[in-house]
């Protein structure tokens, strides 16, 4: 008869059973309160869409200006005067978040994608080198929840 370490003794079976169920139920209930419903078994996508447009907040000649980031790419000089290219798609590979200026399907719903976008903006800003002129990265997002009228959300990640 095959012997396995995973043959739980009769004494361990009930605690294992209860512990597993409690963890699962806890995760399932917790999932209903998270934006991306992680661990919630939300198997079917909603039919929502979003369009992301990126902008940078920069200070030039003492004035704060908001400039569009075309195709997710911009160039700027560092303190030494060397030009650098920054590309949103190089850092953000997720197919829903790196498609800019066009409506894309919001997998797991709008809340999930906006939640992830907020993190992506913060992550991108954190990666910018010292001396780069961007003060904040802004995402202007048009949303269409399940075919309804377009709404607008603005997300901003400031440089610390």
């Amino acid at each position, binding site marked *: 008869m095959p012997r396995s370490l995973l043959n739980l003794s009769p004494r361990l*079976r009930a605690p294992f059973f209860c512990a597993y169920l409690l963890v699962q139920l806890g995760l399932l209930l917790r999932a209903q309160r998270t934006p991306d419903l992680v661990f919630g078994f*939300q*198997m079917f996508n909603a039919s929502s869409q979003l369009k992301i447009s990126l902008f940078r907040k920069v200070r030039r000649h003492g004035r704060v200006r908001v400039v569009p980031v075309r195709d997710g790419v911009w160039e700027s000089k560092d303190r030494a005067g060397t030009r650098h290219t920054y590309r949103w798609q190089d850092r953000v590979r997720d197919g829903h978040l790196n498609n800019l200026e066009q409506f894309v399907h919001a997998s797991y719903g709008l809340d999930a994608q906006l939640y992830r976008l907020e993190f992506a903006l913060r992550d991108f800003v954190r990666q910018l080198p010292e001396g780069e002129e961007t003060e904040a990265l802004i995402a202007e997002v048009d949303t269409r929840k399940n075919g309804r009228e377009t709404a607008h959300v603005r997300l901003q990640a400031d440089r610390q």
Partner: protein
Amino acid sequence: MSAFGQAFRRFFGEERDALLLGLLRLALSTLLFFNGLRLVLEFYRDGYFADYFHMPLLPETWLPSRSGYQLLLGLQALAALCALLGFCSREALLTASCLGLYFLGCDRLQYHNNRYALLLLAFLLAFTPCDRAFLLVRGRRHTLPREQRSAPTFARRLFQIQVSLIYLGSTIGKLLDADWRGGQVLFMRFAKTPAVSATHGLPLPAWIIEILTSAWFANLAAKAAIGSELFIALGIWLPRTRRLALWLGLIFHVSIELSANVELFSWLMVASYLAFVVPEVRERRFEFARGKRRAELLARLVAVCDWCARFEHGPLSSASTDTAAFYVTNRAGQRATGALGLAQLAEAIPLFFPLWLPLALYAKLSARPGAQAASSA
């Protein structure tokens, strides 16, 4: 001992035939292997996930290095392969599933419910005696004799509960979402169907387009989808409704597989239904008439497709005066031929299971009392 104590002992001490758990292991380890293979391909195509934007559920310091990740990916694929072949299969299943869960924790962006469900079910299967049948490394002696296959299967109950939870979680999510409840989500999806169909060279007739793009149809479909999921989640627990719940689930997943991209989800859920099949084997009988070509063909088909070992096969005795080509005797002792016999075959053979309800309904509608079935119990 109190009634509760007896029920407790029965539940946790239950010993059943583990042949089907072996079959389930084959299915789940194959899916695990493909899931691991996808990660390996993504690694070589897109690079190491932590080199770009990721959202760990675990603390960042718990994430593996690039080479560590590469190593763990290889280990996961190897473990899934070992589980498939039956080499230290339960330990391998546990390793592959735990590694998969760890990877999900490393990056929330890689989280998908179907992947999570696969890993949880594989994790639970590791605690069942799924290493007593279909051990491919043992060649022809891949399955232990019946007396050695009987083992405690309490973890099978957990597996079944997990399957129910998946459907319940999905149902609750839809019920809480007004757009899902009201049919708006499906309305948007159906509205795209005519254009998608036309681009595939299959333009739909106007009357179908009218139905697909109507709000009432989407509303009805949403209620049907939610009702179906709820029925599957609960119906699989009751012996009277289990067969219908499994049949509905099968049709539900086939339709999802055809209409949406859900990775391995449909395959996983259909495979998981094996956990709800009565574990004991060869409790039914299939007899066929020698010399009748169709009957012999059917007998061969049954022998090849009877993966769940439901039937004892054999020719009808030569003394039999019956003219029927075959007889099927089910677990209740009901002996049948014709459409009802075929329905009884279909209900026990996975590949033919989609035909079970149509055949059973046809048999019921067309049968005269006592014409097809004769109790032999």
